[in-house]
């Protein structure tokens, strides 16, 4: 059961990482237009990098 000493911190760390990523997306306003974002992948207007809202 010694492996738990490694695995539990790892799961907690990964969980926090995910939560941090979620906060980041939330703050960047990535949930403002879910439907449009789903369709925009079909456009090839700005393929090399994501278009920023403030550009």
């Amino acid at each position, binding site marked *: *059961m010694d492996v*738990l000493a490694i695995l*539990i911190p790892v*799961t*907690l760390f990964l*969980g*926090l990482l*995910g*939560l941090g990523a*979620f*906060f980041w997306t*939330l703050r960047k306003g990535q*949930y*403002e*237009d*879910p*439907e*449009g974002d789903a*369709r*925009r992948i*079909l*456009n090839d*207007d700005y393929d090399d990098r994501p278009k920023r*809202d403030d*550009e």
Partner: protein
Amino acid sequence: MTEALRPPPSGCPACAVAPAAEQAARVDTGARLLLSLPTIHCAGCISAVERGLAAHPGVRSARVNLTLKRVSVDADPQVTAADIAAALDRLGFEAHELDAGLLSQTETDRQGRDLLMRLGVAGFALMNIMLLSVGVWSGADGATRDLFHMISGAIALPTIAFAGQPFFRGAWSALRGGRLGMDVPISLGIVLAAAISVYETFNSGAHAYFDAAVMLTFFLLVGRYLDHRARALARSAAQELAALEVPRALRLRDGTEETVAISALAVGDLVRVRPGGRVPVDGVVTEGRSEVDRSLLTGETLPVVTAPGAQLSAGEVNLTGPLTVRVTAAGRDSSLHRMADLVAAAESARTRYTTLADRAARAYAPTIPLLSLGAFFVWMWISGGDLRLSINVAIATLIITCPCALGLAVPAVVTAASGRLFRKGLLIKDGTALERLAEVDTVVFDKTGTLTMGTPVPDNLDAHPEDALRVALALADGSSHPLARALAGALRARGLTPAAIEDPREAPGYGVQGLWQGQEVRLGRAGWVGATHAATTGAYLSLGEATHSFTFTDALRPGAEDVVAALKAQGKAVWLISGDVAPAVAAMAARLGIAHWQAGALPQDKAARIAALQADGHKVLMVGDGLNDTVALSAAHVSISPASALDAARAASDMVLLGRDIGPIADAVRTARVSVRRIRENFWQSGLYNAVFVPLALLGLCTPLWAAVAMSLSSITVSLNALRLK
């Protein structure tokens, strides 16, 4: 004057009708424009709109939001929303101007983000706790189990303290108000589950309910978030389609024009009304000849000729020539304000609607604590005073009965249904509108602007030679009169080019004249042109000796025939009540197959008819667009107005049709019925889970594993059932 009718954030129609003086001070920032695009639906539309607008001079950038069906445009100050709307129209997209100032309040939706953040925290905590719980369920024992419980607790307690706050706050305010809302049993369940779990963990007990407490928080937050989304959408809808004009008037003083707020006008002031402008006050014309469009106030299709001495009411649109008006009533005394009083009276007469969720909560809220309290005492008696066992059973009961699925039952269905209706072009402004719409058995339509487009269309163009048509086109181009514009539009659509006309001039109140091949030509009223007046709506053209008459009909709104037929097929009684003259209303009723109609109805008459229908036990859906409909719209059980309606009418109604097509109404009624059925099914489903698991809990057989299974299964089935609506 529409500008004074802007719906306030509260969405209260009575306040909306009243001229809002404070808004006069609002300055237009100009740079950022928002437009509603009811017809966009695909990736192709997004790039067409964004590319098309980027090519428009003065536009710096354009960004489409497909979820909200809006485009936000960053442009130079001289570019107006009307320019953008015209550009979009050329691209083939219907566009309406939105008020960016009002919308910015909903755009930065702090509360929604806050809920989403709590939801995220609860979700990630739940995942980690579940990993540990699976270990416990599959047989972790002794020190390992205690360690797992402790780690779960270390994650769960801060999570609950943070993510559960919306429920704790709700419960606290309910308790202070002496009520027992849904939040009280929910908070009780979460807090007690966490407390007993802490106790069990430190006494190395077998069962800890940290996972259940966090799961409960998570699923209830999902429901709360969906509910908030629906409400936020409703709020923004109330503000959405405000006109961009500012409530100002041109006051004449010592021969010079000055722009003042409408609230600053006094009786006796002289006001200049330019062609195309709205009359800001009630008054008498002192100078100028023109025609005014009263359709939004009275439902009359035809413009009315005005000359010095004519009475004007606030809200009418001046069409052809400039007018000088002496103010007879401003502010509180104006006809607009009297309308506001009527709306307020109708609003207060409408009883507060009790939703299905309210009724369910009322039945449920006291049951849960009582049941678990009962379980506690019975087990105390059976076990001979084993406090720990009894508390465990009581808390298991509390967790199992906690209305996880119940919290999702309504919001999940409402979200699915309003999403479906939004895609069809119908915006729901009021959260309870869907339930009320499901009960409707009588539908009352207004005529002008609702069943018709409110714009005339020439119907006898084929009867005239091409020369006459080309001259008519050239002359019609010189006027902003609705008949002239309709004529010009229809002729252009036939591919005709205007004839060369010299010296075209508009004679306000009469028509347009000019010289064509050396002879005088006139387009306008029968008497002025020298033609004999026909019975129908018309414009007349004189070409030297010959005269031609153009007759017009009001174009039906797309989908009008279908919607009436569909509603009749659904077994609804359909009424047509209009302020227009009897022959026009009768013809429309006959054309659409509407058996019940009433013509020449004043605003009070419309409301009285609806009140009479409702007194007979009918549930009335009112569909209308004019100021004369606002009272009826607020008096009806549920109401819908088209996007082209006056702000006051939109503010008074529960739903707004975004596109030109009126067809979605029949579908909305059907969708509303289906959603209410789904909500009922959801209640039964969550009740069924309780019927199965509550006895288990009462018998003391319910472990945290069973609680987790019951909660997630019921939440998922309820959500799936709601998704069937799509």
